[in-house]
């Protein structure tokens, strides 16, 4: 709209503009626009303001008032590990005892899978039993898959493990598998026990819920640090960190699953005279079993994810291979190990999902002899015994013969090199475009915000959305971050998160809408998203670093890929669960497909889209911390540095800061989703 048009007084558009402006300036919009304008102005001129007033506190939190929580925590932990004594034994003894408790089964599994059982120490060690033959392990996996579902799954799982052997990843993969085999039962049993307690006691549930919230939002590196200090470098520390990481969802799922057992079923159990324990064992848990198995699947996938990350504190295995390959910039080796992780993740995921979906089947006829009742188990047992004993004399049975392994490292390396040589210009152009037009401006905006205003604006926005308690909480959390001297890094975190959430939504939501309306698209997109979600977060870094080198842009791509899934999934879900009558009503009213989408489907899917947004933000934040490995300068880097220095205080404070950002985002978006659901009259 130019000046001349205005002067000429072309009535209709003029009125439209006026209406638009008055719409902006009235009601709730004015609040948000005002807030943005003030923030933008302060962000742009904060530096000038500081110079003009010579008030350095505007851009930096005065160091005299910093909390200094780091030192306090660090000295507390060293007091714990060095000085605390309970009289008969010290705290150090407790941690040693715990270590031994976990180390013992871990050693057995490791011997079984890799080392074999031996008597004696070092040079004098005499082997009494070889490890399970690689053929035996594949046979066991195939049998389990066949039992859980069918021969197709058996072929897939067997193929995955055969891949690990043929492509020379066997030993590392078995180290990783040993950790998974120890961590999963502990995680499942612990989660089940805590979940049952939370189901039985409302007070316990109230106490444990904030702890679970925090555990799921504190970045993984942050609790690697205290564990490293208390338990030392090695597989035991890695296992403890893994269990802590993988257990919370099991607790939550157990509680929810038990709570959603229909009241009538519980009454039926009580009416036949079940005692408390019988009710739990015979009624509640079996009825909740399908949901509980979903929890087990989650524990397995999270365990694998964490076992890979925990290679930084000595878990070894495939994660360590990737890490060392990345450090050496060994492209081929990194991708090989990465693909092995992917293969293993897919096998474990499909197997545990098959158990979750498993249908009950009739018991075999008890009159048959046992080997005929369970023919597959019998054959498997025979293979296991035969191949493992053969391993005593023929080394080819013991370990996959090295001469027969296939190495793909050089192929991968030359492939990446080819891309880097031939497509460099195209990649670079995209990178430059995004950097100039998206990343840098957003970064400048967030980094310019003076901390004091940042605290206030977060409080105002959160308060507007979710009431004054939420506002105060959000402001207090932001103040904690500023007072810990982490303001600048937190702003970098927010900038990277918001850009990647924006991109993930931009790509994910349309994909989800498409999948929600088109069955065939749904099948393809669903399969891709499922696979993306099973991959341990670490894997995403590999191709990104190979193609884009280190820096914010690489981090961005990895985060977007990792956080894409919930945006797609919730958008599809939101579209698919709209009451079909409402869509028919729209059609009967004469909506074009486009109108149907914009005026009926999207408004109704809004709550679901917001939940997807929430999940996307959470995943983005958790991935962002891991991208510290590829050189971002955000809170994640702070945690990572703390890990390399084993500085507990620094690690925990920075970890808490990330958790606070996550909690604020989670509460605000949830409040938005809730109010939009209420507006639509949905429950």
């Amino acid at each position: 709209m130019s000046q001349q048009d205005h002067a000429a007084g072309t009535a209709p558009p003029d009125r439209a503009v006026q209406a638009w402006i008055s719409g902006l300036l009235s009601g709730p919009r004015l609040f948000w626009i005002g807030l943005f304008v003030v923030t933008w102005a302060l962000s742009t001129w904060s530096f000038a303001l500081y110079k003009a007033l010579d008030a350095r506190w505007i851009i930096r939190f005065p160091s005299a008032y910093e909390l200094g929580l780091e030192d306090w925590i660090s000295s507390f932990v060293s007091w714990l590990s060095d000085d605390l004594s309970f009289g008969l034994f010290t705290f150090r003894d407790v941690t040693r005892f715990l270590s031994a408790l976990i180390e013992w089964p871990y050693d057995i599994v490791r011997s079984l899978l890799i080392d074999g059982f031996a008597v004696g120490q070092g040079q004098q060690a005499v082997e009494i039993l070889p490890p399970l033959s690689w053929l035996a392990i594949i046979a066991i996996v195939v049998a389990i898959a066949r039992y859980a579902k069918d021969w197709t799954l058996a072929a897939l799982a067997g193929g995955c493990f055969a891949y690990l052997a043929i492509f020379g990843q066997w030993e590392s993969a078995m180290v990783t598998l040993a950790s998974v085999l120890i961590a999963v039962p502990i995680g499942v049993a612990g989660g089940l026990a805590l979940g049952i307690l939370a189901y039985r006691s409302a007070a316990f549930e109230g106490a444990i819920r904030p702890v679970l919230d925090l555990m799921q939002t504190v970045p993984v590196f942050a609790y690697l640090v205290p564990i490293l200090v208390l338990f030392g470098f090695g597989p035991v520390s890695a296992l403890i960190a893994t269990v802590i990481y993988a257990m919370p969802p099991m607790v939550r799922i157990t509680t929810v699953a038990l709570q959603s057992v229909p009241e009538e079923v519980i009454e039926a159990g009580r009416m036949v005279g079940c005692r408390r324990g019988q009710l739990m064992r015979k009624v509640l848990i079996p009825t909740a079993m399908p949901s509980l198995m979903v929890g087990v699947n989650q524990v397995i996938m999270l365990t694998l994810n964490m076992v890979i990350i925990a290679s930084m504190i000595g878990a070894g295995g495939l994660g360590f291979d990737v890490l060392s390959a990345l450090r050496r910039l060994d492209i081929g080796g990194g991708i090989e190990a990465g693909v092995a992780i992917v293969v293993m993740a897919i096998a474990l995921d499909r197997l545990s999902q098959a158990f979750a979906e498993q249908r009950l089947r009739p018991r075999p006829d008890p009159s048959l002899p046992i080997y005929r009742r369970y023919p597959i188990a019998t054959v498997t047992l025979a293979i296991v015994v035969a191949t493992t004993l053969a391993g005593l004399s023929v080394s080819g049975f013991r370990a996959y013969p090295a001469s027969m392994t296939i190495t793909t490292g050089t192929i991968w390396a030359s492939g990446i090199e080819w891309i880097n040589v031939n497509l460099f210009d195209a990649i670079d152009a995209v990178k430059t475009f995004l950097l100039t037009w998206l990343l840098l401006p957003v970064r400048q905006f967030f980094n310019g915000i003076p901390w004091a205003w940042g605290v206030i604006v977060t409080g105002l926005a959160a308060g507007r959305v979710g009431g004054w308690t939420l506002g105060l909480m959000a402001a207090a959390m932001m103040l904690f971050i500023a007072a810990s001297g982490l303001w600048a890094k937190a702003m970098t975190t927010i900038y990277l998160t918001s850009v990647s959430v924006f991109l993930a939504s931009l790509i994910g939501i349309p994909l989800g809408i498409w999948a929600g309306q088109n069955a065939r698209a749904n099948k393809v997109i669903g399969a891709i998203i499922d696979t993306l979600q099973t991959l341990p977060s670490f894997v995403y870094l590999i191709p990104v670093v190979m193609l884009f080198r280190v820096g914010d842009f690489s981090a961005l791509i990895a985060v977007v890929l990792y956080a894409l899934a919930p945006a797609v999934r919730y958008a599809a879900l939101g579209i698919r669960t709209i009451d079909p009558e409402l869509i028919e009503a729209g059609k009967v009213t004469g909506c074009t497909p486009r109108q149907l989408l914009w005026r009926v489907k999207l408004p109704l899917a809004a709550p679901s889209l917001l939940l997807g947004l929430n999940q996307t933000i959470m995943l983005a934040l958790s991935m962002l911390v891991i991208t510290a490995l590829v050189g971002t300068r955000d809170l994640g880097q702070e945690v990572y540095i703390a890990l390399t220095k084993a500085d507990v205080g620094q690690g925990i404070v920075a970890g808490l800061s990330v958790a606070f950002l996550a909690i604020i985002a989670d509460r605000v978006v949830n409040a938005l989703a809730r109010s939009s659901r209420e507006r639509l009259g949905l429950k």
Partner: protein
Amino acid sequence: MARPVLLDCSGVWKVYGPNPTAFMKKFNDTPGDADLAEHGMIGAVRGASVQIGQGEIFVIMGLSGSGKSTLVRCLSRLVEPTAGSINFEGTDLLKMTDDELIQVRRKKMGMVFQHFALLPHLTVLQNAAFPLEVQGVDRATREARAMEMVEIVGLKGREGYYPRQLSGGQQQRVGIARSLVTEPDLWFLDEPFSALDPLIRREMQDEFLRLQSMLHKTIVFITHDFDEAIRLADRIAVMKDGRIEQTATPEELMTNPATPYVAEFTRHVPRSKVVRLRSIMSPGVTDAEVAGDLPGHLTVADAIDQIDGAPYPFRVVDENGVPLGTVDAEAAINVMVGRSG
């Protein structure tokens, strides 16, 4: 009908809200509606008293929210009543310890649920055997007992199926088998047929009457369907807003409703489906020629075809065949067309 009383509940209250026990004490176990509202309490069951006789089919009828489900849960102590007393076979149910209660439920009570409440991981046979499994009965014995019940409810051949493989009516048959496997004295049925299609519902009602004619249980049957109530009940308690409006035989409800609410229910029910021959006969033994004998508990609707088609009146007899009076076509038709004779 002088049956011995098996379950005697009097002045039973179930009140929800902050500190219900203190609230009930304050009003001496008889708060009024205004007291409830003033203290923000919700009275799900308000001072209900019923006596259920041995071998009787006692129906508790009410619309949703009337408190009938809560009342039956108080009777089985699935819900702890706030006040009142419940006497079962001469002992106070509310004073029982958890252990005693478990024993009573294991041996003396059975319950059927609206949504079947079958355990999804057990087969038909295992579901039916479940109450015995809980008691620690060995597998062979309990499965043999359960098999008998499965046959009685007509599911022979399906004992290896899982609940999800059965239709609603079949699932409820499993629920019935499970509730009867311990041979309970007292049988609770909480809207057992409400989740079924109308046709299946009718079929299941017939099945229920057939079972009762074999087993002679004492039954507390909950329903929101007045037709179902008058079809099955020996006596009906009509509930509204947590109170029992009237307890009577179906016929008394029709002919002599205690409150306008009960009258509203009965108004649209054809009297012929409720009124029994015993009520419309001309009493006294006659020597006049009769077309035959009809039992006095038959409803007019059930007997009209015979009475109308016969040239002579029928003699009405009691359960033992003792003549009570006669009924003629005119009296029966008067009831059928709603003409006051």
